[in-house]
């Protein structure tokens, strides 16, 4: 089953690459339409290359690793040890054992260190996949987030620390800094705006645009031939904002995700999706 899915995904990926090469000479508008067509064509669990990451993540989750030679299967993502269904829909959230609000990546790193005794330096070095370099984190997030498909984003704000994280995320969203004075809000606080031809979701008001965005990450990025998580999306936003490079799985990124998920509350999760 898994192998069959993999072969289909590879065929689809090759078709996608050929399709993209063919549209490069045309206008971006036509490219967008083409990509939309391919997205519709391969937005299918049997063909979306993002599901290769889901399969790899499933193996990694059950694999004994670290000095303790155990799997991650007792890791508590908030719904109880090893319980994956619906866990992603409620992250980030407060974890009493760590006394911190954590997103999925932070929690996985914590479980690797505490439960497996795994040195995460190598895992963090491979935080974003590239040619010939798989990312355990991208694969695990794809696998775990996929277990929340069909559920709705349900931000957790009952704990004071969660509300504090939300407030800090909102403050960060509106903070202007860097050589170009950009904040997240510079590009994402009005409906119907775009950079060049790229449409920009408005996150300043709760609703459909935030729901559709947050409910569709992690995603398979056709232009990068890789599965990407929200950590990568925010990293790329900081780059384009001309801010310094944010540290992977740092609390500021968790605060931003908390704010974005509150704006996206009630949005249905369907992941991994497939995007440009």
């Amino acid at each position, binding site marked *: 089953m898994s192998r069959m899915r993999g072969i289909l995904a590879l065929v689809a990926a090759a078709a996608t690459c050929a399709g993209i090469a063919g549209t490069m000479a045309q206008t971006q508008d036509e490219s967008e339409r083409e990509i939309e067509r391919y997205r519709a064509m391969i937005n299918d669990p049997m063909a979306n290359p993002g599901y290769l990451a889901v399969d790899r993540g499933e193996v990694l989750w059950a694999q004994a690793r670290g000095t303790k030679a155990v799997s991650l299967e007792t890791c508590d993502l908030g719904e109880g040890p090893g319980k994956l269904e619906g866990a992603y829909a409620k992250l980030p959230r407060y974890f009493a054992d760590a006394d911190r609000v954590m997103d999925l990546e932070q929690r996985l790193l914590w479980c690797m260190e505490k439960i497996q005794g795994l040195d995460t330096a190598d895992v963090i070095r491979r935080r974003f996949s590239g040619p010939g370099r798989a990312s355990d984190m991208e694969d695990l997030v794809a696998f775990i987030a996929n277990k929340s498909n069909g559920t709705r984003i349900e931000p957790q704000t009952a704990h004071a620390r969660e*509300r504090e994280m939300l407030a800090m995320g909102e403050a960060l969203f509106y903070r202007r800094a860097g050589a170009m004075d950009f904040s997240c809000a510079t590009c994402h606080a009005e409906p119907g705006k775009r950079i060049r031809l790229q449409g920009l979701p408005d996150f300043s008001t709760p609703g459909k645009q935030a729901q559709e965005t947050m409910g569709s990450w992690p995603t398979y990025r056709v232009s990068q031939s890789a599965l990407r998580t929200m950590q990568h999306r925010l990293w790329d936003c900081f780059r384009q904002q001309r801010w*310094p490079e944010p540290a992977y799985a740092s609390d500021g990124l968790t605060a931003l995700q908390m704010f974005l998920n509150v704006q996206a509350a009630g949005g249905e999760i369907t992941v991994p999706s497939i995007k440009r």
Partner: protein
Amino acid sequence: MVSFSSKLFRTLLVCGFAVTVSSVDAQDRPPVDPAKVDALIQGMFTRVSPEWRARAVLDDTQRACTERRNQVSGAEADAIQARERASVVLPPDGNFLGDWRKGFQVANNGRGLQFSDPAGTVAGGNCYACHQMSPKEVSYGTLGPSLAGYGRERNYDPELIRDAYIKIFNAQAAVACSNMPRFGSSKVLTIDQIKDVLAYLFDRQSPVNQP
């Protein structure tokens, strides 16, 4: 904050998620301690160079615009504009117009000042990311107003050329908390690059001023 919460309240009610409504209402959200936010943000940049880290530290204008979410008026706006006007350097030779062809290159170039850029990358102005300029270019952004026909519509008025130079050199000298970067004062663009962009806007031969 009030409108944020009331909109969220409605959204959650529509979606049937009453369970989280009260917990994210404004009265339950603690006021943000600015020092804590600063610490959180500096904590994201512990692995970058001191030069890069400094870019996440707000200057007085960034701080004011952040706290007010760009909604400034009256004396506060005047103070920002006066401070920013003081950093504007006019062209030493008194000539505001460079080469419109080079100006197009600057307007079309989105490189520079990103942490992924190789050292020594010459930054562009990336005007097309946010503005329409030449009516023939289909790939333009809409975050800023259209600048198509900019010089022609202003009769190539020397006073307005000077105003546009100041606007590009430091947008907040013209409008406090403008979304536009302070290209000259923040050393994104050189005086010569700004003069070339001005020529792209004001030269009669520039595609910006053609139909």
